[in-house]
């Protein structure tokens, strides 16, 4: 019964990945080269000397950091807030989750409209407030450019983790909450000493999902800042990989890239798992 699934996974996932592992040790003259030459780890060495690769890796790691701080942090905060109120809970749940169902492509196009210098929504707001217009996509100002690319990425998935946290909070024992209230716990103490520690296992799930999700980021940066505009400086691992896959015919190099991405994902998830070790007492 399990064979159809395994067959699919092997043919379309594991097999191509193993081919990639193999390819990463070879040099290809062109895409259809039938006799690639073995070059050992040379592709990996090239990778470490490739400025754009290092750039895209740094950008991705910075994004992972921002995601862990803001996405996970804000979603936990919002979940605690919604959990503490009694009215309109469903309304907030439904609206906060909404951006997730819209495709990142549409969101990217939408934010492009917002960032537009002449007629964008953000600049219109600035004008109404009596401020100067801002050239959002100024290639000179890389920090701002980076910020406007990653903000929608972070914003979109907050609702996702928010709902997971909220379910976790709903599952916490009511007795402990009531006991803490009788003992005179203030709302903030309750959050800090009881709710957050008890969410440990869920936090771990969220962090692993957030890390693996961030490594896969593609659509939004690709649309807001095509080809790592300007000159590859805003590439992420996913967009640079796409660039390599299309514009460069270096099959071996791209394969090494792919292997690296999976290793990075597995490694980071393992670290998260060790830091937030599963606690069976919760």
């Amino acid at each position, binding site marked *: *019964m*399990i064979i*159809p*699934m395994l067959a*699919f*996974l092997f043919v*379309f996932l*594991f*097999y*191509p*990945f193993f081919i*990639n592992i193999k*390819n990463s040790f070879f040099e290809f003259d062109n895409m259809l080269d039938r006799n690639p030459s073995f070059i050992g780890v040379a592709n990996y060495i090239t990778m470490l000397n490739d400025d754009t690769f290092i750039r895209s890796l740094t950008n991705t790691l910075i994004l992972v950091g921002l995601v862990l701080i803001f996405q996970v942090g804000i979603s936990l905060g*919002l979940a605690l807030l*919604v959990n503490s*109120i009694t009215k309109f809970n469903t*309304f907030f*749940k*439904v*609206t*906060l*989750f909404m951006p997730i*169902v*819209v*495709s990142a*492509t*549409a969101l990217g*196009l*939408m934010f*492009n*409209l*917002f960032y*537009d210098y*002449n*007629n964008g*929504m953000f600049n*219109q707001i600035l004008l109404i407030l009596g401020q100067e217009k801002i050239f959002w996509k100024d290639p000179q100002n890389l920090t701002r450019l980076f910020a406007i690319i990653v903000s929608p990425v972070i*914003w979109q998935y907050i609702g*996702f983790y928010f709902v997971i946290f909220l*379910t*976790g909070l709903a*599952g916490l024992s009511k007795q402990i909450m009531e006991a803490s209230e009788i003992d005179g716990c203030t709302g903030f103490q309750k959050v800090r000493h009881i709710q957050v520690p008890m969410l440990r296992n*869920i936090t771990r*799930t969220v962090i692993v999902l957030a890390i*693996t999700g961030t490594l*896969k980021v*593609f659509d939004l940066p690709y649309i807001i800042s*095509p080809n790592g505009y300007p000159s590859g400086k805003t590439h992420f691992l*996913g967009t640079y*990989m*796409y660039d390599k*896959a*299309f514009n460069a015919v270096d099959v071996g190099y*791209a394969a090494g*890239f792919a292997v690296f*991405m*999976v290793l990075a*994902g*597995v490694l980071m*998830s393992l670290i998260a798992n060790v830091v937030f070790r599963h606690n069976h007492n919760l």
Partner: protein
Amino acid sequence: MRNRKKAISKGLIYTILSIWAIGCIYPFIWILINSFKDKNQIIRNSFSLPIKFFTLDNYESAILGRYNILQAYLNSFIISFSVVILVLIITTFSSFALARYQFKGKKLIYALVIACMMFPIFSTIFPLYKMLVSFKIHGTHLGVILPQVAGNLGFATILLTGFIQNIPTEVAESAYLDGANVFQVMRHITVPMSKSAYSSAAIFVFLWSYNDLFLQMLILTDRRKMPISALLREISSKEGGTNQGLMVAAVALIAIPIIIVYFFLQKNIIKGLTAGAVKE
């Protein structure tokens, strides 16, 4: 005193949440409003309601223009429905086996299923593309469907396995005693009892398939075969800079139907997400 403090903090909580909620809804309202305005009006004042200058021109040029958006919708549905159906059929069997049978290598298989959620599509794309070429299905819908099925199996299997494990086994056992075979038990007991898990798996797989851009863009190069996301990107890269009206209408055309469907199905979506993620 205490009550007053409580009331203030309640008010503060509602204010923060409302601001965030507006931040989630307003962008889409802005899109909807402006999609009915003449493109010059968007430039001048994008916050006004489209009363004086109400127009359907943007939609007209989006639907009847050089790009056939209706055809793209059809393509999207062909692809995404096929993916959903295949994923559900395959995971019905795999999750039943994982949840109900003890067999050698079960742990390993479960680990593989979880591992495959870690494989971004980028990590397989080159060999995959070559494979599709040798199967002669690159550039076809099938060439997108099959890899998408593989990419979604892990999630769906984990969600359904977790759900089936929580169904009490008594009913199935008494059915076996009455002489039912495995397939009858699956068809008449397990599957009907897991309806809610099925619907959420279906919805999520559909969304991910419908919203995917990378694979669709790489595999489908013929404009007539493109699903909606890929076509929209094409439109934006060709004329997005100049025609804001067209862009707004295009975004509305892709986002608004999904949002409407979302409001109808939100209960299943949110319930399913939590069933899958919180379990483990």
